[in-house]
C-alpha cells in the first residue's frame, strides 16, 4: 500500500487550557474528497489552520506525501506550504484580492513559477522569450480555469465586483492555479443558493477526477457532504468520534448523538 497523500497523526492543538484538537488522526487520499464535519466549535477550522501554517500544532505530525517528496507541514513556514508542498486553501469568508482583476487573481497564484522562469525578473525586465512564454502559459492556465467556472467574460473585471457565488468559485480556481496537490476548502457552500451549490459540486468532482489532487472539505451542508464525499471524518469537541464512507457515518450512533445533542441519561 502506498502512503496516503496526507497523514494526520495525533494532531493536538492547545490554546492555554483549552484543548481545541485532541490527538486527531486521519488520512486524506489523492483524488478523493475527504470531508471533515462536526458541530460548531468541533475544531474543524483549527485543523485547517494547522495544515496551512497559521498555527503551530502543540504536538502531532502532518505528513504530506507527493511525488516531489515528503513534507512535514507542521514545521514549514506559511508561504512554503503552498510553494514547496503544494497545499492550497480557501476561507469561510472570501479572501480574493478585490481590487485586482479576475484574471490577475489567478496570475498571482502562479507567481513562483513566473519568477523562476524570469530568473527573478532579470529576464522579465529584458523582455526575454522565456519569460514571455511563461507569462503566456500562465494566462493560458488562468483562462482554462475561467472557462471551467464560466467567468471568461469577466476576466478583466475587478474580482470584488463579482456576485458572491462567482467569487467562491473564483477563489477555488485561484487555489487550483497554484497547482496544489491538496486543496483545503473551508465551507465553500456557505451562503450559496442551491443552483450555485450544484455548480460547486461539479467543480469539486472535476478537480478530484481530472487534476490529480486530493480535496479536504469542511462543510455544514450535509446533503452536499453526503453527496460528494468519498470519506468523512467526524469531529466533536476536538476529538474524532467517527470516520468512514457517507453511509457508515450517517448511521453511526455517535454521530447522531453529537448532531442531535441527545442527552446521556435519556439514552441510557
Amino acid at each position, binding site marked *: 500500500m502506498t502512503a496516503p497523500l496526507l497523514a494526520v497523526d495525533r494532531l493536538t492543538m492547545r490554546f492555554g487550557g483549552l484543548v481545541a484538537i485532541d490527538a486527531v488522526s486521519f488520512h486524506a487520499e489523492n483524488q478523493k474528497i475527504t470531508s471533515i464535519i462536526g458541530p460548531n466549535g468541533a475544531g474543524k477550522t483549527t485543523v485547517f489552520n494547522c495544515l*496551512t*501554517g*497559521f498555527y503551530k500544532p502543540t504536538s502531532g505530525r502532518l505528513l504530506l506525501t507527493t511525488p516531489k517528496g515528503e513534507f512535514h507541514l507542521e514545521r514549514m513556514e*506559511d*508561504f*512554503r*506550504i*503552498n*510553494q514547496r508542498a503544494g497545499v*492550497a*486553501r480557501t*476561507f469561510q*469568508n472570501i*479572501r480574493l*484580492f*478585490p*481590487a*485586482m482583476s479576475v484574471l*490577475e487573481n489567478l*496570475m*498571482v*497564484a*502562479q*507567481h*513562483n513559477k*513566473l*519568477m523562476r522562469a*524570469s530568473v527573478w*525578473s532579470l529576464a*522579465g525586465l529584458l523582455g526575454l522569450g522565456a519569460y514571455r512564454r511563461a*507569462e503566456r502559459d500562465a494566462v493560458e492556465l488562468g483562462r482554462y480555469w475561467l472557462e471551467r467556472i464560466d467567468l471568461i467574460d469577466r476576466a478583466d473585471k475587478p474580482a470584488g465586483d463579482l456576485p458572491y457565488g462567482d467569487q467562491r468559485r473564483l477563489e477555488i480556481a*485561484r*487555489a487550483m492555479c*497554484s497547482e496544489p496537490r491538496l486543496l483545503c476548502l473551508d465551507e465553500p457552500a456557505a451562503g450559496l443558493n442551491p443552483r450555485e451549490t450544484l455548480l460547486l459540486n461539479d467543480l469539486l468532482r472535476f478537480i478530484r477526477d481530472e487534476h490529480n489532487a486530493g480535496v479536504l472539505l469542511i462543510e455544514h451542508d450535509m446533503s452536499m457532504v453526503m453527496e460528494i464525499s468519498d470519506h468523512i471524518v467526524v469531529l466533536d469537541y476536538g476529538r474524532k468520534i467517527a470516520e468512514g464512507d457517507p453511509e457508515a457515518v450517517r448511521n453511526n450512533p455517535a454521530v447522531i448523538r453529537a448532531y442531535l445533542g441527545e442527552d446521556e441519561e435519556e439514552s441510557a
Partner: protein
Amino acid sequence: MEYFLQQLINGVTLGSIYGLIAIGYTMVYGIIGMINFAHGDIFMIGAFSGLIVIVGLGALGLGSAGGLIVVAIIGAMIVAAAYGWALERIAYRPLRGSFRLAALISAIGMSILLQNYVQLAQGARVKPLQPMIEGGFVLMQKGDFTVNLSYLQIIIVGTTIALMTGFSLLIAKTSIGRSQRACEQDMKMAALLGLDVNRTISLTFMMGAALAAVAGMMFLIYYGVIDFFIGFLVGIKAFTAAVLGGIGSLPGAMLGGLLIGLIETFWSGYFTVEYKDVAAFAILVLVLIFRPTGLLGRPEVEKV
C-alpha cells in the same frame, strides 16, 4: 507671463524630485501601512553616494560628465537600495507584529541615526559640486528678464517621466508588481498562495530607495550643494506630496509631488521665499482636514 513661465519650469523640475521620493513613501505605506520616516535620509544617502562616485572617478580623471553622472546614478541606486533593504530588515521587520507606533518610532530613530552617521563620516559642512551640465534654451526675452529652460531641467523631468512610466508598468504588468499589489490587499492570503511576503516587502523598500537615490542625484546636480540634513526637509515635503496625492496611490504620489513643487515655487516667486515651506505644509494641513484620503486616494474600506 514670462515670470509665470519661468516659475512653472522651475516648479515642474522641483516637483519631479519630490514625486520620485514620494513614490517610496506611498509604496511602503501601501504594503505595510507604516510611514517610513527614514526615507528622506535614504534620499540623502543616495545624494552622498552619487557625490562620492563623481568625486572619486573625477579625481582619477575618468570619463566625461555624462558618463560620470550615469555611473553615479547607478551606483547611488545600488547603495541606497542596500540601505533600504537593511533598514527594513533591521528596524522594521522585527516590529511588524507589534503595535503600529513601534515601527514609526523605530523609523524616526533610524532617520536620526542615518543623519548622525553621515554627519560623522562625511563632516557637517556642506559639500559643493561644480556644475556638470550647463547651458540651455532661452525661451523668451523681455527687457532684461529671460525665460530659461536648462538642459539639466530637461534631463531631470525627462528622467522622471521615464522612471515613473517604467515603474508604473512594472507594478501593473509584471509578476513582481502583481505580488506587491496582492500583499498590499491581503498579506496572509498572498502567503497562502506561495508568495514570499518578506521578500516582496524587502523588494518594495529597495525599489523606493533606488528611486529616492535618483532624486538625490538630481538634487545634487541641480542645486550643487548637499549636506547631511537635506533628507529631513525634502523628505517631509515628499511625504506631504504623498499625502496630498492620496497615500498608497502611485499616480497620487506623482501628482502630489508635482503640486507641492509648483506650490512652493509659485509661492516663493510671487510672495515670499521665507514662507515657502509654510505654504507647502499649510497644504498638508488643509488636505488632512478637508480630504483625508488625498486627491487620488481611495476612501478607506472597512475590512470584513
